[in-house]
């Protein structure tokens, strides 16, 4: 073995996969380095709510045993990862960020995507913090404590997959899984400065994950490089007839995303996406556009209405899902979201049905846009990470409620089901904090968003930054 523990800690997850494959280090050595990093930093970050070290040791040992027998290693062999705590982990209680779920029985088996990661040889280190039942954008979780942004511990990590963003930013693991209904992968990716992929709605199976909004829930990866993001995404793909929300009938591998963007029609979203972005968020998009050779401004159809409809459906489905507990034990819910859940449960049916009918028309309008464009750019969040506890954010002189407004720019896109890569940029005017840029493609064209992401990475425009922890 050629790498020291310190050297292993400095390698990204893609390089680790290569190093393990080449026999430069063992999966057990990589695991020890990752566990040491978690133990050293998580007291400050609070990304993990549960650690599955015994399982991780078994999985790493299995990889090393495969190598010792001279057998071929799967694509993520020995690479550490962790999952938002709404994914089922066999033998563990699926918390979904709640106190209420603590009394549930442990999961009988892994979530479908955790099974895919295991089949790909990845090593699971534990469950990650989140907003309760995924209803939030800040991971200020009263039951388990707030997750702190590794780039500034006084600030939020974003949410609802806040632990998933923070764990990658803190270098604890290079790969995490999260969920995204209205922005819950892209917002923490943006605020923590990591790569995130929200795939096409219906691409990846959600079986074995705790739901928030059946109509809009997506699952996907966050990672420390585009190469890892693509590698994990391909490993996660598989049709699943047992998930009624999984519409993929075949695997469409991205393979190598390093194909450039020559010939792609790339535009910049204006209107709603410009108006609801602060100056640094606009600067981040400009930097990405310059690197991609994009200059044309494009109008996304009915963005404000798409956001409105997503908001209404989320509130109503989320409230309905938890109505029994809201009736009997409302005080056990997250204080920051329980009143929103109750309001959601009281949403008039007409509002919900109208939002669902609008969604079909909206889908067609958004799809028509992609007759003319391949990739569209927009900020992932209006601003950089707010301070923990902030009630308001300022967007161009107007005060917006902090917690619901972090999804202003992500909701219209996920409501149409489009795949999005969130790329980590570092614009001026944020005191060194990141803001993500959404690389948006037509449904089922994750490959195009990943190709654009790879160009930004290669140009040095989008990347992770080390943290002082």
């Amino acid at each position: 073995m050629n790498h020291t523990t310190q050297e292993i800690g400095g390698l990204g997850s893609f390089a680790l996969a290569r190093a393990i494959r080449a026999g430069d280090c063992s999966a057990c050595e990589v695991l020890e380095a990752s566990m040491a990093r978690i133990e050293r930093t998580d007291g400050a970050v609070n990304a993990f709510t549960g650690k599955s070290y015994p399982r991780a040791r078994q999985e790493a040992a299995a990889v090393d045993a495969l190598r010792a027998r001279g057998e071929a290693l799967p694509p993520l062999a020995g690479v550490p990862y962790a999952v938002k705590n709404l994914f089922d982990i066999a033998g563990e209680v699926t918390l979904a960020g709640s106190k209420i779920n603590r009394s549930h029985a442990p999961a009988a088996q892994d979530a479908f995507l955790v099974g895919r990661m295991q089949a790909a040889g990845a090593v699971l280190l534990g469950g990650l913090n989140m907003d309760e039942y995924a209803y939030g954008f800040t991971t200020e979780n009263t039951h388990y404590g707030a997750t702190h942004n590794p780039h500034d511990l006084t600030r939020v990590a974003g949410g609802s997959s806040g632990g998933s963003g923070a764990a990658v930013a803190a270098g604890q693991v290079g790969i995490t899984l999260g969920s995204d209904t209205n922005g819950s992968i892209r917002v923490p990716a943006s605020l923590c400065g990591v790569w995130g992929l929200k795939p096409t709605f219906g691409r990846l199976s959600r079986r074995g994950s705790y739901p928030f909004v059946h109509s809009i829930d997506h699952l996907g990866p966050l990672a420390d490089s585009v190469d890892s993001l693509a590698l994990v995404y391909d490993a996660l793909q598989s049709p699943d007839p047992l998930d009624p929300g999984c519409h993929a009938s075949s695997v469409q591998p991205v393979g190598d995303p390093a194909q450039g963007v020559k010939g792609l029609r790339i535009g910049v979203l204006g209107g709603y996406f410009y108006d609801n972005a602060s100056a640094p968020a606009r600067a981040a998009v400009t930097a990405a556009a310059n690197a991609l050779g994009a200059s044309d401004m494009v109008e996304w159809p009915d963005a404000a209405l798409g956001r409105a409809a997503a908001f209404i459906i989320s509130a109503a489905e989320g409230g309905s899902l938890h109505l029994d507990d809201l009736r009997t034990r409302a005080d056990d819910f997250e204080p920051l979201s329980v009143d929103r859940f109750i309001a959601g449960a009281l949403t008039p049916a007409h509002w919900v049905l109208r939002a669902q009918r609008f969604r079909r028309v909206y889908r067609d309008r958004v799809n028509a846009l992609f007759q003319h464009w391949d990739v569209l750019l927009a900020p992932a969040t209006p601003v950089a990470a707010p301070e923990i506890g902030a009630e308001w954010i300022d967007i161009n002189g107007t005060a917006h409620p902090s917690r619901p407004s972090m999804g202003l720019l992500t909701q219209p896109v996920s409501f149409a089901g489009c795949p999005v890569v969130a790329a980590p940029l570092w614009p001026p005017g944020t005191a060194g904090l990141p803001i993500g840029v959404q690389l948006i493609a037509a449904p089922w064209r994750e490959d195009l968003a990943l190709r654009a992401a790879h160009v930004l990475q290669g140009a040095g425009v989008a990347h992770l930054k080390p943290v002082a922890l």
Partner: protein
Amino acid sequence: MNEMHILAYVKASAVAQGLALDEARAQRVASHLARTAHLAQLLEGFPLSVEAEPAELYQPLAFATTRSKVGAP
């Protein structure tokens, strides 16, 4: 709906749903529902034809004797 109407709606519909809300909680819930009402009002202004059906997840299972897979993209 104005604020008074929304608060009255919250109290009445909470009873119908079996939710016990004290006055302070009812007020907070009403403020959240007011935000949703504003967004619903935006959607009311969008013309929808009667042919615009809801986007939903339901899909019937393939009939047992058919060989082709139905409905998948």
